[in-house]
């Protein structure tokens, strides 16, 4: 699985860099919605270099909601490379294990403009996760590596 991901990531991120097709123009002041694995987000370009996004991710009995900030290295290219950070509040109720927590996620990734409005994006990075269950006050914490895939649609 990891090698499969390596091939995809290499193809999507490194490949397009060698073809400098200007399509993304400027991300400044653009609003987009995103769907992913599984999440829903609303993204806004604060400037050509910085974007923010509100995100909610859902699983069976798990919700993680928070915000992201992106720094875009090359906003004018077909593949925009970014780094960023995400903070999430977590709540869960899974098989009698109920509690809350938080996630702090740092990532690097890319957004590939299929058209000017429609994009494919992915990111990867370490997420520090803390979860605490309510009944016994047990907690678990530590680093997990996370890979995200999604699509965005920009309204303008």
């Amino acid at each position, binding site marked *: 699985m990891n090698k499969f991901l390596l091939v995809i990531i290499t193809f999507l991120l*490194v490949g397009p860099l060698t073809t400098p097709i200007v399509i993304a123009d400027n991300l400044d002041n653009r609003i987009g919605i995103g769907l992913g694995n*599984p999440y829903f987000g609303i993204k806004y370009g604060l400037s050509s270099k910085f974007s923010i996004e509100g995100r909610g*991710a859902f699983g069976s009995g798990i919700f993680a909601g928070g915000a992201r900030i992106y720094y875009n290295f090359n906003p004018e290219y077909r593949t925009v490379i970014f780094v960023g950070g995400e903070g999430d509040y977590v709540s869960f109720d899974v098989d009698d294990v109920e509690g809350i927590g938080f996630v702090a996620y740092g990532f690097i990734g890319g957004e590939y403009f299929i058209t000017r409005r429609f994009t494919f994006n992915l990111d990867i990075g370490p997420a520090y996760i803390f*979860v605490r269950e309510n*009944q016994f006050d047990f907690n678990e914490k*530590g680093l997990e*590596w996370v890979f995200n895939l999604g699509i965005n649609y920009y309204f303008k």
Partner: protein
Amino acid sequence: MLKRKDTIKRKKIGLLILLSIIVSLFVPSLGRSGISFGIIKAIEKKIDKLRERTEPYSNLPDISTFKTQKSDQFIIDIPDMCSGFPFKGRRAKKPHQGAHVHFDNTGDPWPKGGVDKPENYPPIYAPLDGVILRVDYSFHYGDNLDSYCIDLAFAKDSSGSIYILHYSIEPMIAEPSTNFYRQFIFISKEQEVKKGDIIAYMYTPPSSSTASGIHIHFHIKRMNVEGFMAPALFTYAVVKKFHDRWNGFGDDDGDPIPVCMGYKLDADENPFGTGAVDELW
């Protein structure tokens, strides 16, 4: 010239990404956990670990089991105690919401053989199968006194509330040195124990007489719920032996207390939900 710089910039970015991916995939510590596809999967991994930790508690028997199936294992070897008394409920003349076993170290019967190691002090047992919910290696109270405490989760009820046998182990002194009591505790938090397992040893300070009040206070309580209950978990034969060692402590302001683990209990002091009772064993 500009185009060349641009190409170099792009190559640098590409290299950075490749490096990040390679690090992510091949650093040994990351290989163990793998990469989670989406933040939810990563959170699920942590919740799975929480579930593993809570699993033993979900397998505990219902508290009603112990209404009829009593334990023949007491919390200590009864001959080790010099006196004691049962849980005295709110309706007693002098309530005390915990049973006691007291020790007398006059003449230094402990440590046995004069060899000062924990195993030579009176053993403290788990009277039932269960899971250690909490360990206090040192608990400061009163006028410069320190105890050590253990909570053994042994049952639950239909609402999922966990029932705990609480041991407050009280040598009636300030802890002689930092972490001194730690050596007398032979279990750790979340450890599963079996009936009869030695969970700790009772530290009896040198030459401490009955008057010094060395004792273990024990009662049942529910996790995250206020209030204490009578530890009525033992067979009649065990309770009778316990009663026979009360040695003058078994009275309620002059009224003799019969063979029982709980005396003059209010309804909420009865762990079996059978209402207020005068005697419960």
